[in-house]
């Protein structure tokens, strides 16, 4: 950025081009609550004043000065990171993760499309890692074939229901794991992102969190015995913490020929974040610590690494896998 700025300042850089450019900031509709464009802290002194000049309240629009223009960053697209670690205790990594994001700019207005899948396998020895690997592969293959490829065909008419396609993909993954790994199973949490609408499929106790400002909400419901006991008001969340059967799941992909999949849709607020994680993270890192790391203004890939580091610092008792997605403005 510094080099870039120096280049502009030293060269002629046709400043007139910039001042004549069509970028305008209109007077915000609701005064006071307007969000000022983010300006890096280091630049806070001089640009801020110029900046304020724009909001004179006289209704006139003026070109921004160069520096503000160059530092004006509004994320227009999703950014994401993915990380996994074997942890500090286990001898193999039975987690699996898949991230896919396609963004298109053309006259045909294909919406941005993302698919994020996380699976945490279980079963003796290598069965777990096989189960999770099958699960993410089948879901990715089915979803891309039934939803993404048709989108490129412009076949908007009679397109399949996204929830149905996603659910069918997860059911196909279940059948595949059931056939291939009779003694294993896997959790699965999958998110399809189309613009700012999330379609979610979930089985097991991996989690999806929505982080918006200072709120962190668990969107998925653990299919665990203790969660069920909490929902039925039979034990408290505190009692669940050290319940002897804390790790008993009643629903995963694999053991049965059919599986009931939790499906839901969520419209995501601007600048919110989605976090998919295996129990290796949420079992060892408290929500407030997750929130703190995720709220830092660092690239999502770095945040993923920090989350993994913290889980390892707290013992790393299990494999740790995270996918973090930043939504744009």
């Amino acid at each position, binding site marked *: 950025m510094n080099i870039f700025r120096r280049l502009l300042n030293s060269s002629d850089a046709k400043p007139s081009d910039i001042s004549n450019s069509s970028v305008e900031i209109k007077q915000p509709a609701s005064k006071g609550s307007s969000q000022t464009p983010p300006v890096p802290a280091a630049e806070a002194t001089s640009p801020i004043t110029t900046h304020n000049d724009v909001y004179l309240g006289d209704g006139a629009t003026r070109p921004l000065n160069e520096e503000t223009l160059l530092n004006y960053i509004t994320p227009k697209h999703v950014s994401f990171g993915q990380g996994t670690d074997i942890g500090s205790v286990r001898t193999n990594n039975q987690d699996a993760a898949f991230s896919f994001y396609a963004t298109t700019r053309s006259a045909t207005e294909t919406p941005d499309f993302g698919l994020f899948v996380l699976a945490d396998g279980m*079963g003796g020895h290598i069965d*777990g890692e096989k189960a999770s690997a099958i699960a993410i592969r089948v879901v990715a293959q089915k979803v891309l074939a039934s939803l993404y490829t048709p989108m490129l065909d412009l076949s908007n008419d009679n*397109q399949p229901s996204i*929830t149905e396609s996603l659910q069918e993909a997860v059911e196909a993954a279940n059948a595949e794991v059931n056939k291939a790994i009779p003694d294993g*199973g896997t959790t699965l949490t999958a998110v399809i992102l*189309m*613009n700012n609408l999330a379609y979610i499929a979930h089985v097991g106790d991996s989690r999806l969190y929505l982080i918006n400002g200072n709120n962190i909400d668990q969107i998925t419901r653990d299919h665990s015995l203790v969660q069920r006991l909490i929902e039925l008001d039979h034990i408290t969340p505190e009692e669940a913490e050290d319940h002897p059967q804390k*790790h008993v799941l009643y629903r995963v992909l694999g*053991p049965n020929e059919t599986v009931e999949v939790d499906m839901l849709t969520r419209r995501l607020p601007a600048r919110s974040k989605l976090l998919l994680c295996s129990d290796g993270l949420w079992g060892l890192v408290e929500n407030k610590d997750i929130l703190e790391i995720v709220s830092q203004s660092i690239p999502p890939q770095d945040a993923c690494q920090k989350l993994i580091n913290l889980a390892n610092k707290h013992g790393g008792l299990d494999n740790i896998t995270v996918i973090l997605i930043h939504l744009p403005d």
Partner: protein
Amino acid sequence: MPETAKFSTLGNEGGQDNSLKANFVLQNRYKIIGVIGAGGMGMVYQARDLNFTDVKKLVAIKEMQPTTGEAGLRATMLKTFRREANILAALSHPSIPKIFDFFDLNERAYLVMEYINGSDLEALLTKTKDLPTEKIIDWAIELCDVLDFLHNQKPDPIVFRDLKPSNVMVDSLGKVRLIDFGIAKTFVTGVKNTSIGTEGYSAPEQYKGDMTPQSDIYSLGATLHQLLTRKDPRLETPFSFNERPIRKFNANVPDGLIQIIDRALGFNAQERFQNCREMREALEKLRDKPSSNQNQPPQSVQQYSSPVAKREGTDIFIEDSANGAIQPKWIFKAEDELRSSPAVSGDLAFVGAYDTNMWAIKSDTGELAWKFATKGGIASSPTVDEQNKLVLFGSEDFTFYALDFRTGRSSWTHPTKDRIRGSARVAHGHVFIGSDDGKMYALNITNGRLLWAYDASNPIRSRAFVTNDLVIFGSESGEITGITLSGNRKWSYRTRKSVMAAPLVDMKEGICYVGSTDNFLYALDANTGFNSWRFRTNGSIYGSVAIYKDLVIVASVDKYVYAVNAQSGKERWRFLAEGAFVGAPLVHQDAIYVGDTDGYIYCITASTGKERWRYKTRGSITSTPCATNDTILISSMDRTLYAFPHVG
């Protein structure tokens, strides 16, 4: 999570095989014949007692092999095993296997007991297709009897703790025998790794460490439930028996048995039978009842096809007030059929009739305020614009009317090229109206001047929904279209048959809900038209949806009103009516009002789908009710507009 097992009870498989081999003789007395099962902490063998030389006396020998390497813990385990063996040895009951011997050898403990020639219930379930209900009742009575015996032991009651099909043997005489007295269970310590599948049969309180005789009653209920439904509770959501009604899977079970099992499965211990004697008496009463009662025609399975629906006929839920207690506050008679819905503004109600008139009626008394005649029948529902004090509607005479709603005088009209049966929507200073001529018109609300007309090439009867960016409507072609406020197509989604219903957009979530005559309710992304989910009914959907909290309410020609979770597209409840639904439901506070083609208007509790009251009009209802604070208005084909009190 490497070291996990599918079910925690099978935790000791895998290691090297150190079980006793055939022909091995234990204690110089018991000659091993073979392995008959794997218990909690070791093998169970079949053996021959060599002390009986002339007869072949068979015994079962249970082996306890502490898997822990830690000496102190191992000692405790052996001690507990021995103590339980002593308790067992002292028990004498026909359903409890006799204990013959107990000894330690090579750090393993052995329990010698009666060999039972038979099959356990779990094996019976896989071997058979259908177990006779009478047999199951007999077994249940015997199990109550032995549990009652255990629960009445002194000084402390014995709680079996682990009743499940695999722990109940049926011997060669057809009598039940309890096996596996939870001896090993005491030693099962917390499973550290994630495991799949729960115990399934255990009562909720057992997970807090509370074991009471009532816990055994719950497990007995769970066992009976599985015998009748063939649904393994270990593979289902824990404590969800009530979501799998026995009737749904087995139509031949008498009501009395279902009630007994439901009570045994009470979530809280105090909801269950007080003791096994009480449960046994209930079962005996059922068994001894003349069988006429058991052979009653099974209720239709269809009725139970939803996991939530627990309806047992419509009448059951009608509250007292329904029996004629709800009467209209007033009625208003028009000169021909009322096919469309009323609208209200302040103290005036408006309704169009096939007699060509738009009627304005005082909403508190039902007296006529004014009427306005068009040149054709009116099938379009009026729309009120409070700001400009207009009532807007179309007519079979091809014309769209805007009247001053205080006087009934024409403010402006706009011609189209065919009949207008759709209804108008007012937004952004314009009115949007579809016509059978295939166009969606955007007209200036104050003077009726045409802003644009979008050609859908097919009759439009679906009322448009207008968001901040889009006008969304359906057409005869089955297409749902989103056009920009300047009249350009942004997206379309094609259903298989015509869309007459008005789309409804949840503005917060940006999801558009609309039903089609292809039987589906669709949830579309309002910005892109992508199909988020769809929900299938068994009949055409003509009416629009209503929203109550997180529920989308839709009524179908299949006579059902459905409540569907907005986020998942899954059914929450359904309500069966007498006739088909063509009109749409209205949500008013916590109630749903909807009319059917048999002439009934129903009031339903929105959260549960239970009926509060119904009233029969003399004609079909094809329209949607409308509400003021305390009054519900609905028009019927019997030429009458009804006003009912709304009871909050």
